[in-house]
């Protein structure tokens, strides 16, 4: 019987290795898989390349992973937010690399990676410093930049509900990068609040079909990054 559920967040991430590329869902605090990220901190893997829209905030979740020296490179669109001090400090100190990508290009690169598209053309960033060194090409009189599909070894994603096949639904704007990141990772690891029986998710409303999901772990009452930051929590 197909059953993608695993027992613990520790077990869900235990094969993430030094040097791995990891896509981490979330936009700001919404959809950030805090418990899975903390399991990565517990695991202690190093030299990670992380693709995520932001760089976390406060001293928990992604910001804590970075502060812990486990991330050697960030691929993101907006590496500063309110309460985000960890990344800027390391970046200025030259201790972490940054690949800055426009948000829509980041999304499309991930989507392309998952869809077997090695490269595509986009108008975003044409004529700016972010297009420097990139191939450009003219179609119908307009210039476009060539961008590459982005794939990863792992994706860490937060969803609301799953079934044993790994079908997922999300909560509101916490959906953000989750569905596309699941498609672009060799191993997609998802934390959900509950697992329902097969058929418990309307097949018309499935957002991420289970084929894109490898492991599901239940975190019944996930921490909200925004709340942890307000409370001044620090991990570990």
């Amino acid at each position, binding site marked *: 019987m197909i059953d993608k559920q695993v027992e613990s967040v520790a077990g869900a991430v235990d094969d993430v290795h030094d040097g791995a590329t990891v896509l981490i869902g979330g936009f700001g*605090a919404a959809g950030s898989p805090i418990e899975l990220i903390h399991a990565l901190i517990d695991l202690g893997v190093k030299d990670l390349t992380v693709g995520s829209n932001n760089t976390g905030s406060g001293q928990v979740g992604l910001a804590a992973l970075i502060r812990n020296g486990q991330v050697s490179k960030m691929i993101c669109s907006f590496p500063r937010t309110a309460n985000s001090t960890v990344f800027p400090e390391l970046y200025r100190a030259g201790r972490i690399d940054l690949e*800055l990508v426009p*948000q*829509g290009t980041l999304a499309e690169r991930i*989507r392309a990676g998952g869809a077997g598209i090695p490269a595509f053309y986009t108008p*975003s960033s044409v004529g*700016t410093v972010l297009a420097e060194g990139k191939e450009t090409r003219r179609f119908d009189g307009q210039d476009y930049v060539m961008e590459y599909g982005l794939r990863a070894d792992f994706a860490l994603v937060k969803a609301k509900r799953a079934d044993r096949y790994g079908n997922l639904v999300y909560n509101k*704007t916490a959906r953000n990068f989750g569905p596309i990141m699941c498609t672009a990772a060799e191993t997609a690891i998802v934390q959900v609040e509950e697992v329902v029986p097969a058929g418990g998710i309307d097949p018309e409303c499935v957002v991420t079909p289970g084929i894109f999901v490898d492991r599901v772990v239940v975190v019944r009452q996930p921490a909200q990054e925004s709340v942890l930051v307000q409370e001044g929590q620090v991990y570990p």
Partner: protein
Amino acid sequence: MARRLAVDVPDGSYVNLGIGMPELVAQFLPSDREVLYHTENGLLGMGPPPHPDGVDPELINAGKKPVTAIPGAAYFHHADSFTMIRGGHIDLCVLGAMQVSASGDLANWSTGAEGAIPAVGGAMDLVQGVRTIYVITRHATKRGAPKIVSYCTFPLTGRACVDRIYTDLAVMDVEPEGLVVSELAPGVSFEQVREATDADVIAGEGLADPGTGKGGGA
């Protein structure tokens, strides 16, 4: 400025409001218009901020602030959200600016200064994909430096992408012949605008005639 701009938001349009001053536009929308707000993190049909008791940390806007969803809203993932933007489906985007040039170049994401943390978000996608780009900004920085300039010195967000500029002094259209001042703020003269602008400005047709309700000088 936000109040003035809100009058120009077409009824029935799909609108994306940038972070900061642009967000203020929504509260000034004339009550007889229906507009659907898109926020690029994955919501179409964004409503006003929630009552403090009704905050869902997983229902936020692109500025990471809590919002609500109207009846008839839709949630979607980032690739679909930027399909809306890049594919030309959004009618109007209102953005802030660090500098806007006379040819409509926009710089609003980085000073390019040593040690600054570059952060672009969706701005480069918005300026390329959305049909009409309005900029809302003070005419000058707090230190008095002009923000409406001949050429942007800060790193660009996009070239020739701005259609109209709303400042505390005037409303200006980016036209092939240059920056056309179509409207002056109450008590502001065209001469004041000219002096505060680091680019040539042209007096629009309506300016000379206060009777249109669009002009009016000092």
